C-alpha cells in the first residue's frame, strides 16, 4: 500500500487508502460489554442456577470464540418461571394501576438509553450484526418500543377495545436470534403495558442482550416475577408452549416451527400470535427514483445480512429497466463492506450460526442448478467465523426454489414483470404475505399496488423501516397478529 503523507502528487492521493475505498480499522471496544463468564436464569427477580445444572456456550459467530456459558432451562425451570409470573400477576401486577405500570416501563426505556452502548456491543458480539446497526437501529428501537407502550398503559380505554379492557394473564414469549433485544422489547413492552406478566425464552444463539435486560429490569425496580427470562434451546421453548399455566403464546420465528406451535396450542385455551417467515417482493416500476431505489433494494435484502423475516428477497423489476437496474445493483453490491462486525465501517456482518450458513449455501447451490445467473461480491471473507458474500441471482423465474423458499441470508432473487397487474400477480404468488416494497414516483400507482398486495406491511420508496407506532405483522403463512401501534395491544388484552 502507498505510504501516506510523503508524496503529495495528485495520483498518490487518489490512490491513497481513502481513494480506493479502504478505511483504516475503526473498531469498537469489546470490553464495553462487561460480559460475565456464565449466566443463570432470571426467575422471580433474581438470577438463579438451572435446576438440572445443564449449560451450553454462546459464541461470537464472527470469530467462533466462546462468549459465555448459558443455562439450559429445563421443564421444571419453566414451571418455576410460569408460577412466578402467575403469582406476580395475581398478587402484584394486576393490582398495579396503569399509571404505575407506565412509570416502570418509562424507567426501563430510560435505562436502555443510558446503557445503549453496552447493549449495542453485546448484541453485535452475540449476533454478528454490524455495530453500526446495533447502535443506530436495534437499541434505539428497543428503547422506543418501551417508551411508546409505557404511554398506553394508563390509556387503554382510548385504544378502541372498550371502556376497561383487561389483560390476559401470563404470556409465554419465544423470540428469534435476528434482532434479539428488539424482539424482546416488541414482546415485553405491550404485554406489560396491558397488565400481563411474562416468561420470555430468548433464542439459543443470542441470549446475552436479554440477560442484560434482566439486569436492567432489576435496576428499574420491576416487581419480582413480572418478567422472567429462561434461556435454553428448542426444548425449553416447547416446555413453555405446553405449560398449562400460560394464557397466551407469542412466537416469532420460522413458519415451520410456527405451524407446530399452532397445532400444539389448538386444543388448549391459549391465545396465540405468530410472526413467521416471508419472501418479500420489492416491486420496481420504471419511473422509480433510480439511485434511492438501488439503495432501497440493497437495504431490503442485505440489511442484517438478510436475516429479516420481511426482507425484500425478491426483486420484481419492470422489464424495460431491468438491465440498467441489474448493472447498478451489481456495482453497488461490490461496494458493500463485509467483515468484522465490531468495525464501525462494516456494512455486512457474520451469518448467525453454522446451521444457518449451511442452509444458505444449500439454497444458493440449488439456485445455480436451477439455471439462474449468479453474481457474488468479490469481497474477501475472514477465515474464521460464518460468512456469506452478498449474492444476486438474475434470470430467476417464479418456479425456481430460490423464488419461493425463504433463504434468510444475503441472497437476492431478481425477476421481471411487464405490467402492474403482472407485478401484483407475481408478488402475491406465494403462501407468505409479510412485507412488500413499491418503487415509483407516481402516487396513484403506488397506492393502487399497495391496495392489491397481500402483505401486512407495504413500504413505498423505502424499505425495512420500523417504528413502535406502526403495526407490523403478516398475512397467510407469515403469521397473524400485529406488533406496534395500538393494534399491538390486542394480542395482550382479553378482548
Amino acid at each position, binding site marked *: 500500500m502507498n505510504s501516506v503523507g510523503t508524496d503529495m502528487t495528485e495520483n498518490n492521493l487518489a490512490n491513497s487508502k481513502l481513494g480506493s475505498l479502504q478505511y483504516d480499522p475503526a473498531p469498537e471496544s469489546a470490553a464495553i460489554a462487561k460480559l460475565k463468564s456464565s449466566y443463570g436464569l432470571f426467575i422471580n427477580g433474581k438470577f438463579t442456577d438451572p435446576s438440572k445444572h445443564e449449560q451450553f456456550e454462546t459464541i461470537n459467530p464472527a470469530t467462533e470464540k466462546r462468549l459465555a456459558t448459558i443455562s439450559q432451562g429445563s421443564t421444571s425451570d419453566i414451571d418455576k418461571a410460569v408460577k412466578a409470573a402467575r403469582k406476580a400477576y395475581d398478587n402484584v401486577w394486576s393490582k398495579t394501576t396503569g399509571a404505575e405500570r*407506565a412509570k416502570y416501563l418509562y424507567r426501563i426505556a430510560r435505562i436502555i438509553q443510558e446503557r445503549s452502548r453496552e447493549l449495542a456491543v453485546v448484541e453485535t458480539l452475540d449476533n454478528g450484526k454490524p455495530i453500526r446497526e446495533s447502535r443506530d437501529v436495534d437499541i434505539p428501537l428497543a428503547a422506543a418500543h418501551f417508551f411508546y407502550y409505557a404511554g398506553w398503559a394508563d390509556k387503554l380505554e*382510548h385504544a378502541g377495545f372498550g371502556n376497561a379492557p383487561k389483560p390476559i394473564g401470563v404470556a409465554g414469549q419465544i423470540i428469534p436470534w435476528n434482532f434479539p433485544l428488539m424482539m424482546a422489547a416488541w414482546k415485553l413492552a405491550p404485554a406489560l403495558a396491558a397488565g400481563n406478566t411474562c416468561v420470555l425464552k430468548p433464542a439459543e444463539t443470542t441470549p446475552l442482550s436479554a440477560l442484560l435486560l434482566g439486569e436492567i429490569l432489576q435496576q428499574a425496580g420491576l416487581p419480582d416475577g413480572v418478567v422472567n427470562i429462561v434461556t435454553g434451546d428448542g426444548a425449553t421453548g416447547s416446555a413453555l408452549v405446553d405449560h398449562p399455566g400460560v394464557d397466551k403464546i407469542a412466537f416469532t420465528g420460522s413458519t415451520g416451527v410456527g405451524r407446530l406451535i399452532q397445532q400444539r396450542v389448538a386444543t388448549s385455551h391459549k391465545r396465540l400470535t405468530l410472526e413467521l417467515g416471508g419472501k418479500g417482493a420489492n416491486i420496481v416500476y420504471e419511473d422509480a427514483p433510480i439511485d434511492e431505489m438501488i439503495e432501497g433494494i440493497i437495504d431490503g435484502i442485505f440489511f442484517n445480512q438478510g436475516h429479516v423475516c420481511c426482507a425484500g428477497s425478491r426483486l420484481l423489476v419492470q422489464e424495460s429497466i431491468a438491465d440498467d437496474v441489474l448493472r447498478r445493483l451489481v456495482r453497488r453490491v461490490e461496494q458493500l463492506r463485509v467483515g468484522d462486525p465490531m468495525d464501525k465501517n462494516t456494512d455486512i456482518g457474520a451469518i448467525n450460526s453454522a446451521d444457518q450458513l449451511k442452509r444458505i449455501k444449500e439454497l444458493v447451490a440449488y439456485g445455480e442448478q436451477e439455471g439462474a445467473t449468479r453474481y457474488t461480491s468479490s469481497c474477501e471473507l475472514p477465515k474464521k467465523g460464518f460468512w456469506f458474500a452478498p449474492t444476486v441471482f438474475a434470470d430467476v423465474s417464479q418456479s425456481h426454489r430460490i423464488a419461493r423458499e425463504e433463504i434468510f441470508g444475503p441472497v437476492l432473487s431478481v425477476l421481471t414483470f411487464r405490467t402492474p397487474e403482472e407485478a401484483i400477480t407475481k408478488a402475491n404468488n406465494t403462501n407468505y404475505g409479510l412485507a412488500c416494497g413499491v418503487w415509483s414516483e407516481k402516487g396513484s*400507482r403506488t*397506492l393502487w399496488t399497495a391496495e392489491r398486495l397481500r402483505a401486512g406491511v407495504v413500504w413505498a420508496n423505502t424499505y425495512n423501516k420500523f417504528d413502535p*407506532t406502526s403495526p407490523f405483522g403478516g398475512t397467510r403463512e407469515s403469521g397473524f397478529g400485529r406488533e406496534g*401501534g*395500538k393494534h399491538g395491544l390486542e394480542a395482550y388484552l382479553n378482548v
Partner: protein
Amino acid sequence: MSDRLEVRKTYKLLINGAFPRSESGRSYEVTSAKGEFLANAAQGSRKDLRDAVVAARAAQAKWWSLSAYNRGQVIYRLAEMAESRSDELVEFVKLSEGVNSEKAKASVAKAIDRIVWYAGWTDKISQVLGGANPVSGPFYNFSVPKPSGVIGVITPQDSSLEGFVECVIAPLAAGNSVIALASEKRPIPAVLLGEMTETSDFPAGVLNIITGITSELAPELASHEDIDGIDLEGVSASFADELAFRAAGSIKRVLRPSKKNQKNSIHRLRAFVETSTVWHTIGQ
C-alpha cells in the same frame, strides 16, 4: 447559632426561553394563602404578551417539526425535573393554597403523574383522532390531527399546580405552543415549572408564562389575532362570556371551563387540533 441570611429569589416572566422582567417595569405582591409576603412577581403587560406571541409562533414550527416520539420524551423529561424538585413544588403549593403537607404532596404527585400521562399521548393522538376513511371511489383518504398553532391559556386561579399542568401540558402534547397566564394570586408553582422546562430540552418559545393581573391580561389574550385558540379555565363564567366574544373576532377556537369531571378525558387534546384530510387517487 448565627442565622444565615437567605438569598431570595426573584420571580420573572418566561418568554422565548429567557426570564425577563416585565417591559413595563411593574411588579405586584404575591402572598401566601395566609397573607405572608412571598414575592414581588412581574406584572405582565400587553407588550409582554405581544412578545410572547411572536416567540410562540416561531417556536411552534420548530416544536411540530420534532418527531412525536421526541416531543413525548421532552415532556417526560419535564416530569423527571419536577420529580427531582418536588420538595420545592410541595412547599409552594402548600404556601400558595394554604393546604397541609400531606395534601400538597398528593397534589404535586398528581400533577407530575399528569405530565407523564400527557407525555405518553404525543405519539398516539393521530392514532386515536385520525384514521383512514372509506370514501366511495378510488381514493386513498386519511385524516390527520394537526395542532391549531399558538394557544393562549388562562390557567385556574385556585389550583396552582395541578390545574396549571392540566391546561398547559395538553395543548403542548398536541403540538401547539402555549402562552399561559398564571394564576394571579398563586403564580409561583407555575413559574417554577416554567424554570424546569428550560432544563427539559423544550425549544425556546414553546411554553411562555406571564404572571400578572388576569382581568388586565385576559382580554388582550382573547383579542390578539395571531393566537389560534384560547382556554378560559381561569375566569368566571361572566368574564368568560366577554372573552369568548372578543375571541370570536378572529374566529379563535374557544375552550370553556368544563363542568363535568371527566377522568382521563382527552377533550383538552381534541380542543386544539385541526383535522386535515387528504385524498389521493388510486389507479395504474
